[in-house]
């Protein structure tokens, strides 16, 4: 290697540093760094090293120019540091659990009003949720990365943490009340489904009652599968109350909740919820069926999200 080539190596190293430091510091840093590199090089040459190898060794000792430049410029080598990290995760979490389900519900509702099929409604709602989650995450991260790099920008004064901010444990009495309310609602809902074919809300020409729910559900027996799922979900509610913290019970509960929601979405997507004869007998337009299907899908998606969020939260609190 020639001397020109080794000089070029130092020049390139200095260039790489100077590009990354504020311009007013450049002349001073360049002058000092050149002198330091030359001093180190002289030492190695005096010890009898090969000039090219000595230059490489000196620059290797100084290390990655991006790192050294960051150190000169007092620039952090992390995206979000400890000063802002907790605020960042708290804000991001709060935004994600509020904005994302809201956006999904609104988009799903608008699509349902347009009279799209339930599959399209569900697809668009999920797509909107993903897009919203991406935007929320990206922009929040960007704002905090900027805060980290502009020392004059101080985030809003956040009240000092005190022990009073600790979450209160949910009392056993509260959980018992929730359990009873859930049980009553479940029993009423299940009974209503099962007796709906014989309720005399509307009658046909021969005076027989017209059920509000699609007879297809009974013909295929799927309504019993659905009711079965509801009963299992109720059992898991009790199991959770008496065996709080058991992982198999928590997984079983989440799986049952998800299966129930998916079954309902599937019924709605295939237009098997409402009995068309019932709609006709009441004199509603066919739009009402689409509204009901869309609404059921939106509620199910919200329920799916809440199941997942609860499961993740419980898992992290273990």
């Amino acid at each position, binding site marked *: 290697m020639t001397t020109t080539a080794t000089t070029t190596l130092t020049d390139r190293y200095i260039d790489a540093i100077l590009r990354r430091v504020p311009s007013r510091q450049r002349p*001073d*840093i360049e*002058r*000092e*760094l050149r*002198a*330091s590199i*030359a*001093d*180190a090089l002289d030492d190695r040459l005096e010890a009898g090293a090969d000039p090219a190898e000595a230059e490489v060794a000196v620059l290797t*000792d*100084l*290390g990655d120019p991006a*790192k*050294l430049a960051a*150190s*000169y410029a*007092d620039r952090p080598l992390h995206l979000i540091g400890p000063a802002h990290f907790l605020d960042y995760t708290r804000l991001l979490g709060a935004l994600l659990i509020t904005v994302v389900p809201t956006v999904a519900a609104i988009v799903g509702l608008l699509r349902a009003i347009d009279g799209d099929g339930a599959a399209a409604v569900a697809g668009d709602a999920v797509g909107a949720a993903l897009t919203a989650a991406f935007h929320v995450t990206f922009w929040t991260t960007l704002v905090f990365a900027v805060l980290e790099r502009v020392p004059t920008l101080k985030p809003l004064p956040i009240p000092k943490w005190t022990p009073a901010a600790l979450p209160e444990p949910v009392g056993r009495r509260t959980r018992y009340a929730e359990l009873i309310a859930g049980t009553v609602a479940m029993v009423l809902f299940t009974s209503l489904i099962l007796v709906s074919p014989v309720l005399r809300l509307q009658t046909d020409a021969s005076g027989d009652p017209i059920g509000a729910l699609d007879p297809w559900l009974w013909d295929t027996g799927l309504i019993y599968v659905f009711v079965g799922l509801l009963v299992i979900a109720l059992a898991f509610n009790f199991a959770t109350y008496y065996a709080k913290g058991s992982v198999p019970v928590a997984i079983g509960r989440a799986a049952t909740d998800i299966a129930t929601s998916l079954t309902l979405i599937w019924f709605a997507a295939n237009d098997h919820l409402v009995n068309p004869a019932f709609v006709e007998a009441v004199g509603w337009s066919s739009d009402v069926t689409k509204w009901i299907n869309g609404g059921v899908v939106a509620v199910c998606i919200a329920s799916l999200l809440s199941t997942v969020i609860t499961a993740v939260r419980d898992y992290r609190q273990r």
Partner: protein
Amino acid sequence: MLDDELLTTHLQELRRGTVVLACLLILRKPNYGYALLDLLERSGFAVDANTLYPLLRRLEKQGLLTSDWNTDESRPRKFYRTSDLGGELADTLSHDWDELHAAFRTLKGES
């Protein structure tokens, strides 16, 4: 047997800050970056060049060091010197170090 990585981390934690005090003490006599690197190493404060050079500038920015360019020789060099403020900090840190040293001796004497 101590894991090398574990040992390095803890040694670094313990020594962080001692280089600052060593610089403030040595630079009561003006000196330049590369010579200081050598001097620190011979005094038992091994430090990397890429840690020391930015550190000197940071201490200068904080007003603990002052600097002058010496252009008498063929190679111009930036000479740093401990300022009055730096001297004050060096005294305080030295005092703190002595207290820590005494505290450790007490701890070890009792065990």
